[in-house]
């Protein structure tokens, strides 16, 4: 139904796609796989006309097409969720879903109908939020779901989903897959990108693997094993997938001194007062459902939002954080979930983004020597495998996963005493993810306190010594990670009290 052949796309200095072929069939889910920077998103943008293609052919239903822009692609029945949430933060949720095809009456936009219909659509995705709410104030996960809601509503023939699940938890993923399967059964062709191997195998019928902008191969899901798939992606031999994954943590840290402790810290309208302590050398994972307040909790600890009640002790002194700067000065680092809005400065280079926090702490008068900056940048480029491995590349030009690595590098570099990571592995490929998990373990071993947030419960359980559970913006439980299984945690979440 849709086929692309001989696709080539060059950016200044980088060949992002080189002679790539890709095809889709109605009633099938086709997964596009590859490491960070392999060219998946670029292929999608080439398909929808968001990028001009340098060479190659695209045909839809047998006739050659070349879209001048996403508008045309949409009109031709291709509906897309791009990787970075590409919505308008200043508009309401409902508008983001319907803009461009608002329900109208007598030629004017019918606002009530729009609100009602979007509420309905959101319910279909199990999302209960006010359609009138400004999108920018919603968490990344919600934004991702809104983008999906926007895409699935069109009477499209092709649905393209670029990492739609990167910040969704298991429940939402299940809901999404339900929707996707229905659409597939109605004969829609679906392109799906994800770094979660299990998800890919759970949903897709066919897979295409890219590596370094080149086509590796196309496989039927039933004819390939996860190990082979990963091997195709990373291009090296693997015995088992476990080779990539570090062993699971057990509760440790024992009786090391407490580094951070809150007593009834809270903020009206954001998060209920909570009491939590984190020891040096201990990784505390935060588990909870979408909107349970994990992000809000960690923002309070970092002073990104100001607490209006309770107290916080960092190290030896009780502090009242008025700004992130105050937190940083006391050895706290915070890697935010929304890398685009809160994290990276896209106009600056990889090097500059990496040293930014360190430089901010030193103040403007004591610049890091250029040579030192390069050393630091290079060491993280190597460790986290940032591609392209060029410290002078502009961060805005990097692929999503690589951007995330840069952000992470910035905070690892500051060598904090408490490292807060909000969805640090969002959009990162399995190889690098394992690397990061290993790194966290090492850091903790060296005495760093870590607060770890992830929508992927597995991951939380793998890296943390302790798991704190949130529900309805309150901390409901905290348990040592001994023999914990995802089900046990989910049970706690569901019940809203200690298991």
């Amino acid at each position, binding site marked *: 139904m849709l086929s692309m052949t001989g696709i080539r796309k060059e950016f200044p200095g980088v060949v992002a796609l080189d002679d790539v072929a890709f095809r889709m069939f109605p009633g099938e889910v086709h997964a596009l796989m590859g490491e960070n920077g392999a060219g998946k998103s670029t292929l999608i943008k080439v398909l929808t006309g968001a990028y001009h293609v340098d060479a190659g052919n695209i045909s839809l239903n047998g006739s050659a097409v070349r879209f001048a822009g*996403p508008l045309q692609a949409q009109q031709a029945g291709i509906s897309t969720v791009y990787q970075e949430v590409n919505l308008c933060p200043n508009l309401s949720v409902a508008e983001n879903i319907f*803009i*461009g095809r608002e329900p109208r009456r007598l030629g004017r936009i019918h606002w009530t109908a729009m609100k009602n219909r979007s509420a309905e659509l959101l319910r279909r995705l199990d999302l209960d939020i006010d359609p009138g709410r*400004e999108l920018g104030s919603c968490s990344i996960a919600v934004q991702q779901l809104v983008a999906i809601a926007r895409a699935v509503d069109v009477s499209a023939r092709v649905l393209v989903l670029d990492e739609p699940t990167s910040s969704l938890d298991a429940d939402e993923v299940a809901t999404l897959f339900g929707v996707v399967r229905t659409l597939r059964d109605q004969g829609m062709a679906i392109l799906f990108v994800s770094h979660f191997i299990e998800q890919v195998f759970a949903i897709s019928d066919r897979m295409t693997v890219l590596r370094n902008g080149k086509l590796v191969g196309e496989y039927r899901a039933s004819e390939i094993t996860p190990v082979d798939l990963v091997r195709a992606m990373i291009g090296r031999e693997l015995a088992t997938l476990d080779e990539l994954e570090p062993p699971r943590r057990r509760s440790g840290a024992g009786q090391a001194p407490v580094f951070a402790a809150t007593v009834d810290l809270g903020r009206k309208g954001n998060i209920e007062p909570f009491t939590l302590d984190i020891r040096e050398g201990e990784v505390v994972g935060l588990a909870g459902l979408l909107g349970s307040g994990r992000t809000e909790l960690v923002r309070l600890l970092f002073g990104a939002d100001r607490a209006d009640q309770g107290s916080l002790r960092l190290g030896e002194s009780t502090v009242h954080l008025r700004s992130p700067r105050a937190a940083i000065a006391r050895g706290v680092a915070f890697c935010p979930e929304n890398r685009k809005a809160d994290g990276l400065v896209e106009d600056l280079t990889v090097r500059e983004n990496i040293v930014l926090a360190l430089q901010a702490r030193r103040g403007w008068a004591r610049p890091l020597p250029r040579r030192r900056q390069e050393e630091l940048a290079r060491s993280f480029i190597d460790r986290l495998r940032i591609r392209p491995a060029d410290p002078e590349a502009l961060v805005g030009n990097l692929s999503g996963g690589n951007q995330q690595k840069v952000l992470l590098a910035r905070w690892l570099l500051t060598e904090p005493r408490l490292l807060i990571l909000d969805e640090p592995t969002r959009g990162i490929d399995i190889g690098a993810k394992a690397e990061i998990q290993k790194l966290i373990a090492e850091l903790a071993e060296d005495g760093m306190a870590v607060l770890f947030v992830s929508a992927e419960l597995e991951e939380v359980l793998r890296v943390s010594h302790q798991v704190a559970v949130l529900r309805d913006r309150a901390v409901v439980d905290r348990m040592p990670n001994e023999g914990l299984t995802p089900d046990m945690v989910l049970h706690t979440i569901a019940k809203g009290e200690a298991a």
Partner: protein
Amino acid sequence: MSPLDPRYLPIAATVAILLAAYVFGVGRYDAFSDGQVLLNILVDNAFLLVVAVGMTFVILTGGIDLSVGSVVALATVMCAVLTEQAGLPAVLVIPIVLATGALLGLGMGSVIHYFEIQPFVVTLAGMFLARGLAYTLSTESISMDDGVFTAIAQTPVPLPGGLHLSISATIAVCVVLVAAYLLHYTRLGRTVYAIGGNKRSAFLMGLPVARTRVTVYTISGFCAALGGVLLTFYTLSGNSLNAVGLELDAIAAVVIGGTVLMGGFGFVLGTVLGVFVLGLIQTLIIFEGTLSSWWTRIAIGVMLLLFILLQRLIVWRAR
């Protein structure tokens, strides 16, 4: 606090301050309570209002249009030259002038969008161009005694209570209503907001970014030309030195009205209030009538500051 949508807070704040300033004026100056004083703010600023409404569209997309003042001047000169010197009838002249403004806007919008040049420079070049064209047409100021222009200029629109508006002011009110409708109830309007929120996202969402951006500058050019026509009614003359620096007044009105210069947030109603703020400041100063030239400027600056500080304060408190 009442559950007022935070987006409307700046507007509510501005209304409150405007009221306070008005009450202050009524208490201090005898003739101030005359309802005509308020209406005159509208009558005297009708052209600014129209220009500012056009500017609102542009700023909402995150752009800026510096050419409006010059386009206003060009429009007045064109009106005068075409009627007085070329002898064309007003019914022909006015459409020609409006089309010229729209065309200039269209040109600038196209260059801005298709060649990706910053709006600031393009419209600055447009500003030079329009003023240069006005000079080329005439460096003298030209009086007009065309029947239609005179009639429109001098026919008051009676209101109850012995008050009256001008036809220009009525046109300005219509423009405001049309603009509010466009922005709130049409796809064009919503796309304007979307582009202001994030141009790239708007593009990826499949919105007609190119068309909308060009349209927005066309609207602004049209509004500027219309403002020029209204100014021609107002002064019954054409003068190439008209409206120097008007672009700043227009931008100020838009921004005081709560529209964010980066785009994406704001309302036409805010712009109306912004124009009223500027007009009221001026009226207060004229009524005071004792300030020297420099104290006049200082007072304008200080009152502007007060308005904005109060606005911020109210918004802060309410949050």
